[in-house]
């Protein structure tokens, strides 16, 4: 249960290795009695996120042990594995970022509705703002996820459950190692701060950093010819 300060007592991080996910957890107020369930490839709640039956099993197992106050869904794939073909990369990203994550949202929100409280934080991306030549495949998976999450958040109104969306820009982490940092890039620790703020904020969407909200607005307003020029840096 949340305590009087609205701090969670039981948290699940889906994507135990996610630097952003771990950073978010580290930004929440410390409490010895807090239980953080790390859902990853190993451990008590081992999960291959692309396995439908495993998703169902793990979500059931988590909720059967007690109420969950906060679920952070931090699984994601850029789809830039050089050993794979572009098509395979695209399919893998679609599977993890959209199909599996949306299914997790569905399973978790359903259980949270039954306990009539809880918060879900899902990590979207700045990339979903507008297709760019270099990452529209990845962007499209996040755009689909983001779209679904916004719809789900609306239906959760009045159920006691809330859903928040974090839209990070370029985050310097293992996932983006070797890539050229984009403007307004942040570290995963900084991103964690935005994530922790998103959980407590009243709004649905939190950009990380906040200025990306305006950058996205500009991006979307630019005529295609201009946009192509500036996105081909």
């Amino acid at each position: 249960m949340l305590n009087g300060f609205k701090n969670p007592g039981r948290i699940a991080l889906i994507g135990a290795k996610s630097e952003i996910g771990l950073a978010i957890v580290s930004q929440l107020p410390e409490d010895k009695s807090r239980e953080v369930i790390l859902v990853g490839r190993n451990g008590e709640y081992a999960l291959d996120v692309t396995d439908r039956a495993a998703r169902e099993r793990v979500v059931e197992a988590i909720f059967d042990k007690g109420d969950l106050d906060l679920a952070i869904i931090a699984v994601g794939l850029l789809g830039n594995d050089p050993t794979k073909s572009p098509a395979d990369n695209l399919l893998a990203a679609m599977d993890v970022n959209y199909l599996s994550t949306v299914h997790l949202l569905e399973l978790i929100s359903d259980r949270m509705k039954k306990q009539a409280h809880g918060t879900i934080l899902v990590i979207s991306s700045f990339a979903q703002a507008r297709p760019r030549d270099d990452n529209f495949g990845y962007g499209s998976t996040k755009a689909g996820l983001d779209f679904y999450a916004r719809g789900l958040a609306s239906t959760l109104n009045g159920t006691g459950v809330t859903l928040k969306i974090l839209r990070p820009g370029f985050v310097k982490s293992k996932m983006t190692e070797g890539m050229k940092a984009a403007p307004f890039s942040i570290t995963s620790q900084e991103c964690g701060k935005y994530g922790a703020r998103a959980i407590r904020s009243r709004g649905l969407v939190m950009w990380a950093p906040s200025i990306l909200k305006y950058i996205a607005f500009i991006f979307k307003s630019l005529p295609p010819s201009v946009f192509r020029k500036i996105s081909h840096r």
Partner: protein
Amino acid sequence: MSSRAKVATVEQIQDLLSTSKSGRGLLPIGLHRSYGDSALNSGGILVDLAAFHGINIDMQSRTAIVGAGVTIAALERAALVKSLFPPVVPGTGFVTMGGAIAADIHGKSHHRTGSFSQCVRVITLMLASGEVVKLTPKDPEFWATVGGLGLTGIVLEIEVELHALQSNSVDVVEHRVKNLSEMIELLSRSDNDYEHTVAWIDLSGDYRGRGVVSLGNYGTAPVKVKESESVGPSLPSLAGKNFINPLSVKAFNEIWYRKPLKNGAVALTKYMHPLDGISNWNRIYGDTGFLQYQFVIDIGREEIFDRLFRGLRDLRAASFLGVLKKFGNASQAPLSFPRSGWTLTLDYSMAVPGLEKFLRGFDEELVAAGGRVYLIKDSRVSPELIPLMYPQINQWRDIRRTMDPTGLWQSDQARRLHLC
């Protein structure tokens, strides 16, 4: 989020028990005014017992059979007409009989009368099976229900002893004290001579613990009371803004400290429930809300107050209403809060930065010194401290399990603190 079932008869409750299949359980509630999460049951059903509002006073035995939904204020009004009064009443009249049992409430007379359960002869309780039982102080189930936070069954009605009055007044003497040690000294000295003792303590400014000690005995001279049913002024909605800050509290406390001292007869109900004069006073804390922190500590461990006051001063956390009181003996209920020692109650705006962390640290010192917090007011204590604060909890759990083997009674607090 939970659904609320208003019930008016025993049969309706039994129907509810047999049909509810949510898995989130049921929780009886009264006025739903608990400070913490004791009266919340997310995803489950709240059983509203307001319709159980009968009061039957027997003049001969000076007892009353009272429905679970009757408030202390209503019982007082009914009893006063017959020159009787409940021997234990809390600082607010807005507590139901069911709530009074669930929290084993206490009042200004605790050093003499003990907690509420000490004047209760019978609890009529509905168990999870739907069976209705009459419990007396001879039954372990009686003591599991007292202070049991509504987790042992639904209190339907209780039989309670009443105190015979000579008048509707309290003879009050107030003393201004300069610091905590004067306050402690005066309260200790006054226990033998006064039925009601309590002190308002100023926890702002220099945090020395200055305040006003209020002592009272049941009076002999009647006083005129303004229409007792009337509710006082109501605080309007303040647009969710928090008006409690070190400056406003300091100003208020300065006025309160300097206000003329009472000396003489005061109406009983007014003396017992000073805060009930203003409805919705909680709005002054705005949307972020407030927490009430109440703990008890043994006599002789007063050094913990210095530590607390220093910490609060460093946080610039000013308390609007600090109350210090010396408790008498504990009841035998495993989860009852009051026990011999000092109890201090503080109100804080949730918006005070660092408050949560500070209180968490202070809880540990409190436990190390043998103290505990009052669960009915709690919304934030760590679950692992509960067995240290309430060492008889396992005994309570064992009895509770026999009364509710399927775990029907649930609350958010029970989930948060792993009580059951």
